[in-house]
């Protein structure tokens, strides 16, 4: 056990620090409070800049524009990004999930075609996984693709698609063989969102925004060369995307959590409670400290998981632990914020008395979705129960 940086890690960190010092935008604070539709070009430009410095996808292999960064270097990357309060990247799904899946399963032609534009944020990606009748039971999805000549004809509906409204491409899971058991007849297609027959509808969520979309596919024609991986092996391709999702997402989130707890501690000094600053109230102090500690434990769990994966070469179930941990913690953090703000906590963006222009009231509602999206807490606990502890499958 040695949590000091080794020479290579230090060099990686120092190079990144110098680069961030010179390049991180100074006006992000003003932009961050605007709706995503308005700030998206800003995030796109920021990603392009990171890409020019070869910092957009440090985990990717060097030959694909990354730095072949070790897991520890990736952890360093996200911590440094957090330290300078860097904006997020526009093509989050392309960089974090879909790009790595294309690198793992794609043909040379596919890699050449798609990878550079994922990096440069020229083409934004979304995921077409969940359906109205296939949520936790993803493998029961019904969107079908029939091969006609050298094209697949796709019909069906997807839901909960982040970035659907702006995406140029979609990693779409479809059923290509309805005659075999549900896991065996699936295929992943890379679909041009501008194809005729693709319709994107906003899905208004409880925050009032439309962060997600519904996607409708009516006789959408997709060239057969856009199959990712093998036909009818889509389950394995899709699972590997989900593994990327659960594995690395926690590390990135540390950025946001750190910022939130630091800000909340700051705010607790200005809000009054029982005639004194909330930061002096014993109950508030207890709750802030608990939250602070859990954010630190989330970071440590991630580092331990990275060490284990580095040692064994196999990503394990740690992704499920992290998913449960961060999603439930995030909800608790927002609840503490609400307790500190009292009636002001419910004021939304646009009200002059809203705390931090409504990011906390928004956060309170938005985090309600955290224990549902990217695999519900219930599914994650099933995974731990069955795959880690060896208990019999419950479903």
């Amino acid at each position, binding site marked *: 056990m040695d*949590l000091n*940086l080794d020479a290579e890690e230090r060099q990686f960190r120092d190079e990144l620090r110098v680069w961030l010092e010179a390049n991180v935008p100074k006006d992000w604070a003003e932009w961050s409070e605007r709706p995503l539709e308005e700030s998206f070009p800003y995030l796109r430009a920021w990603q392009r800049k990171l890409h020019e410095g070869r910092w957009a996808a440090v985990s990717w292999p060097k030959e694909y524009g990354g730095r072949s960064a070790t897991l520890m270097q990736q952890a360093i990357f996200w911590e*440094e990004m957090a330290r300078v309060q860097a904006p997020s990247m526009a093509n989050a799904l392309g960089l974090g999930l879909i790009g790595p899946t294309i690198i793992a399963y794609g043909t040379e032609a596919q890699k050449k075609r798609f990878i550079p534009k994922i990096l440069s944020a020229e083409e934004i990606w979304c995921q077409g996984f969940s359906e109205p009748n296939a949520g936790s039971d993803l493998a029961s999805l019904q969107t079908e693709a029939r091969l006609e000549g050298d094209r697949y004809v796709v019909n069906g509906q997807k839901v909960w698609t982040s970035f659907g409204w702006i995406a140029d491409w979609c990693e779409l899971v479809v059923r290509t063989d309805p005659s075999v058991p549900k896991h065996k007849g699936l295929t992943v297609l890379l679909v041009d969102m501008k194809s005729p027959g693709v319709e994107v509808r906003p899905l208004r969520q409880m925050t009032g925004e439309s962060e997600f979309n519904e996607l409708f596919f009516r006789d959408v024609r997709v060239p057969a060369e856009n199959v990712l991986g093998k036909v009818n092996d889509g389950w394995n391709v899709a699972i590997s995307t989900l593994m990327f999702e659960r594995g690395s997402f926690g590390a990135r989130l540390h950025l946001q959590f750190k910022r939130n*707890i630091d800000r909340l501690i700051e705010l607790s000094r200005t809000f009054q409670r029982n005639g004194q600053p909330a930061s002096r109230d014993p109950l508030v102090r207890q709750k802030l400290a608990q939250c602070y500690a859990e954010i630190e434990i989330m970071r440590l769990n991630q580092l331990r998981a990275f060490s284990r994966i580095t040692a064994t070469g196999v990503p394990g179930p740690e992704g499920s632990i992290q998913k449960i941990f961060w999603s439930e913690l995030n909800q608790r953090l927002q609840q503490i914020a609400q307790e500190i703000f009292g009636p002001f906590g419910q004021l939304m963006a646009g009200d002059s008395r809203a705390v931090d222009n409504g990011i906390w009231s928004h956060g309170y509602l938005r985090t309600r979705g955290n224990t549902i999206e990217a695999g519900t807490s219930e599914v*994650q606990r099933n995974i731990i129960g069955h795959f880690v502890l060896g208990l*019999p499958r419950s479903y």
Partner: protein
Amino acid sequence: MEFGLSESQRLLKENARKFFAGECPMHTVRRLMDTETAFDESLWTKMAEQGYTGVIFPEKYGGVGLGKVELILLMEEAGRALLPGPLFSTVALAGAMIDAMASPEQKKKYLEPIAAGETRSTVAMLEANARWEATDLQSTTMNGRISGEKLFVPDAKVADFMVVVARDGIFIVDAKAPGIAIQPMKIMDLTRKIYAVRFTNTPAERIGGVADLAQPLDIAATALVAEMVGGMQRTLDITVEYAKTRKQFGNPVGMYQAVQHQCADMYLETESARSAVYYAAWAVEQNAPDAAIAVSIAKMYASDAARTVGNRGIQVHGGMGFTWENDLHLYYKRAKTSETAFGDSTYHRERIARLVIDAGVASSQTA
């Protein structure tokens, strides 16, 4: 950067697990807990032969010279075995305190026989107000003699000498010195005996000032958390095994999500406590700027998690979990005594608040 165990650390942990499984199985634990002191001389000698009684002491004082990470790996395995007797109080508590503040002559005098397995020790600190700050203590010395009443002193009856924390310093008192009265306290955890110790003008040898107390207390707290993690792991293992074999409605009960999710949470809580304590041990060893926060985070989290894991384990066992025959209650009771030692989660949350909210210490970073 590597947050896993090195080869030698892994070996130490594995050997400790084998040693305790062989030398201190549950029937031995149960035999010892029914004795007056829960102390077994021959088991102690064997632990000394393994180097466990001198694990963190410098080699020049007869120790093995290993670090805090190695200490907590040993304590984790001791906790898994629910090891009775004074290993914790002698090595991680009294030994760490002497090692941190005593003069070279005193270290030679007191640490060498501990490492050799010849003497046992403990720390007497808490008083009737149950405060962990030395400034709140009543016991004091006058002309080299100490007076006062100490409560919740672990293993006092088998200690050859005691480290006593008084308001005006830290002292060593010989167990055979005049003016010592040791009374057992009737505690729920039978595997770690606790005593009330009254000193009346008892000769005392000064080893340090109260300002030196923080670091060794952090070491002891970290070691105790590791022991708690071992207990949590064992509780989880026993529970999962039961959930796989106990059948109701024709299926193993572990197939039902209401049960399975309890087990998943036990796993999450155990692993999280482990991450916290491994980091705390490393931070203490390195004198990292966030060492005190790291220790409080670990003690805070584990104090709640050990209790919660115990609750879940007993619940999953149904009626069996409530019996004396089942081992879970033994771990449950040890978790309770460890929960309050060195401050419970409420105490440590306030300590974190002081360090983070009031002092504004920046939160730790990997880089």
